[in-house]
């Protein structure tokens, strides 16, 4: 503020250029004041920006690096890694087997043979026991090592195994992205589709997007009439009804999911009511949970407020006189709705639909509880690899692909709606 006061007292010098009282050109002083105000505004944001950088951006960056970086093999099998580096494209000779034995001896001391075996197991299923089994007997092996190792287990001669070890020896790898799009490396080192029963991720991505589309569509169908009603009712009644929309919004996600489990179960409220009314026979109860139906119903309910609120805030601003003008010019009520009303609600539809879709694509808790085998989404697979199978790099690669999809949608949302127009309640 003091800068502005200074510039206000500017004076004109002889040459006609405007100057401040201390003699600086006005333009320069103004630029300096503006720069100072900019820095001051930025300093207010800086603590939070640093905080988010530390607790959000860096962790996600680290996860992304995890998806391409896995040094389990190269760190624990240094001699063999060295051999791979020196002999590009060569088939394993005596020196390679000697390096293998040396590395397994060290790995056995430091108890890392299991980790190495698991790493190769991702690429060639069923080979973990090869590493642990051979490591157990590695101390008794004598040269020539090639024959000795093959004596222990002749699987060591497999070409796909050596191809996998060669590719795992690279700490920076795209293997996990290949796995995440259901591709694998053939024994000849070529890029090919995985076997039918192990092709799951592309299907899962497609299912995630399809289910999210269905949920977004249902939210739009259910949300549009309600938002319209709220927008045309008088303020007092509308704010009462709005509470019915906001209460689910404020209720814990787990509570809402639990309610749906109670309602949809085989012995749950809906089935029991239908049986009591004689609509269903006792052994003809509907399977509405632990499948896609459960996921769709529960997630539509949970995400519906995110559709209604943006729609409502757009519809509130639409003047009713346009519709009346259309009617007075002879349009039917259907034409008025289609040609006059709906086009004006498009910003709300866009905002709500993208928001619901973004939230649906990354949903985890509800599908995990009511989705069963067919109703789970990509998030559940990421959680599975993080918590159960412990293939963290694959989890990170899947997460990175999901993140890319969400960021594209976020960008679209920003272009269409603008982030600063996001409102809550």
């Amino acid at each position, binding site marked *: *503020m003091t800068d502005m006061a200074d510039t206000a007292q500017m004076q004109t010098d002889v040459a006609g250029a405007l100057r401040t009282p201390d003699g600086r050109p006005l333009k320069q002083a103004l630029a300096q004041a503006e720069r100072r105000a*900019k820095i001051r*505004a930025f*300093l*207010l*944001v800086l*603590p*939070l*920006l640093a*905080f*988010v950088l530390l*607790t*959000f951006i*860096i*962790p*996600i960056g*680290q*996860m992304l690096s995890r998806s391409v970086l896995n040094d389990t093999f190269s760190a624990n099998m240094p001699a063999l890694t060295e051999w791979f580096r020196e002999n590009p494209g060569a088939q394993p000779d005596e020196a390679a087997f000697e390096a293998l034995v040396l590395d397994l001896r060290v790995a056995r001391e430091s108890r890392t043979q299991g980790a190495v075996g698991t790493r190769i197991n991702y690429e060639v299923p069923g080979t973990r026991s090869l590493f642990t089994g051979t490591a157990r007997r590695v101390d008794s092996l004598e040269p020539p090592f090639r024959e000795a190792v093959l004596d222990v287990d002749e699987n060591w001669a497999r070409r796909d195994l050596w191809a996998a070890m060669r590719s795992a020896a690279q700490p920076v790898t795209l293997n996990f992205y290949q796995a995440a799009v259901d591709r694998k490396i053939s024994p000849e080192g070529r890029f090919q589709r995985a076997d039918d029963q192990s092709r799951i991720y592309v299907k899962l991505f497609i299912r995630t997007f399809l289910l999210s589309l269905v949920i977004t569509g249902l939210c739009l169908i259910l949300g549009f*009439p*309600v938002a319209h*009603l709220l927008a045309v009712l008088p303020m007092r009644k509308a704010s009462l009804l709005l*509470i019915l*929309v906001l*209460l*689910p919004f*404020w*209720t814990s996600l*787990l*509570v*809402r999911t*639990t*309610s749906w489990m*109670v309602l949809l*179960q085989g012995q*749950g409220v809906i089935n*029991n009511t239908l049986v009591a009314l004689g609509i269903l026979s006792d052994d003809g109860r509907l399977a509405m949970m632990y499948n896609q139906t459960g996921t769709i119903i529960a997630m539509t*309910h949970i995400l*519906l407020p995110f559709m209604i609120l943006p729609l409502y805030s757009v519809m509130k601003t639409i003047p009713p006189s346009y519709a009346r003008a259309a009617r007075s010019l002879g349009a039917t009520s259907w034409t008025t709705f289609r040609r006059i009303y709906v086009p004006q609600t498009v910003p709300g539809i866009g905002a709500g639909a993208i928001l619901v879709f*973004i939230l649906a694509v*990354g*949903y*985890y*808790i509800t599908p995990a*509880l009511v989705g069963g085998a067919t109703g789970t989404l990509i*998030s559940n697979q*990421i*959680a599975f690899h*993080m*918590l159960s199978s412990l293939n*963290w790099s694959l989890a*990170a690669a899947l*997460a990175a692909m*999901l993140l890319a999809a*969400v960021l594209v949608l*976020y960008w679209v949302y920003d272009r269409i709606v603008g*982030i*600063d127009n*996001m*409102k*809550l309640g």
Partner: protein
Amino acid sequence: MALPIYASPLERLWHYVYLVLCGLIFFFLIAPILVIIPLSFNAEPYFTFTQKMLTFDSEGYSMRWYDNLLTFGMQEPGAARDGNWWADVWTNAAWVKAAKNSVIIGFFATILATSLGTLAALGLSRPEMPYQKAIMAVLISPMIVPIIITATGLFFFYSATGLANSYLGVILAHATLGIPFVIITVTATLAGFDRSLLRASANLGAGPVRTFFKVQLPLITPGVVSGALFAFVTSFDEVVVVLFVGSHEQQTIPRQMWNGIREQISPSILAVATLLVIISIALLTTVELLRRRSERLRGMSPT
């Protein structure tokens, strides 16, 4: 909304069908939340209305699941209910422990998110803020990025830095998740703030700090408090990050519910759910009152 007098019979019919449809959608929104409340008083371990409940027989209802919330995890649940029994509840009951953890984590996460978020919102709403849109996009992103991705990232980051399985780690993560809500509500309030008041205050000789506390803060308090409530609810309802980076020590209410639902869903879960619904009704009422107060302060509403 009244039908215009020129409405045709068909339009009249459609109007009533439309009202019924809206009624059904509202029913779809609210019924699942309300249905668990009577069920939590079920005397039997079922998730459906028993014959006795439907005929309003008092034997069909009981408080046993609420009682179970206190006794579950206690050392001597069968002892006489005196001071020692309540002390046992306070220190050992699993749900009470979870509630204490939830409140502690939620409280500190809210303080952190609200103070940093309000400060940043002040900067973001200044017209001279550089890169305003880009920075806003970064600060809102924790709300948009799927929670499983955030949790995965934090899992790697915390294992590397030793923040895993600590209260601090969970609090920092929850604060991050709450920040977008604080930013959105506070910038929305600041958008309606009359900036000439700041110049008036400066003109009368107040420094920037004094202006903030005496002029700006009182006017934006409703927005700050609703942001804080949003941040608290976010933390209070968060389960995935706790599962990924917390240990058994950081057992919170949602995590305890999650375990309960996955292992063996008992009506105790419904009792907790009922309590949480009551809490959310209280929070919703508070936020609504604050919103009205804020609009009155800004002279936007005639009420």
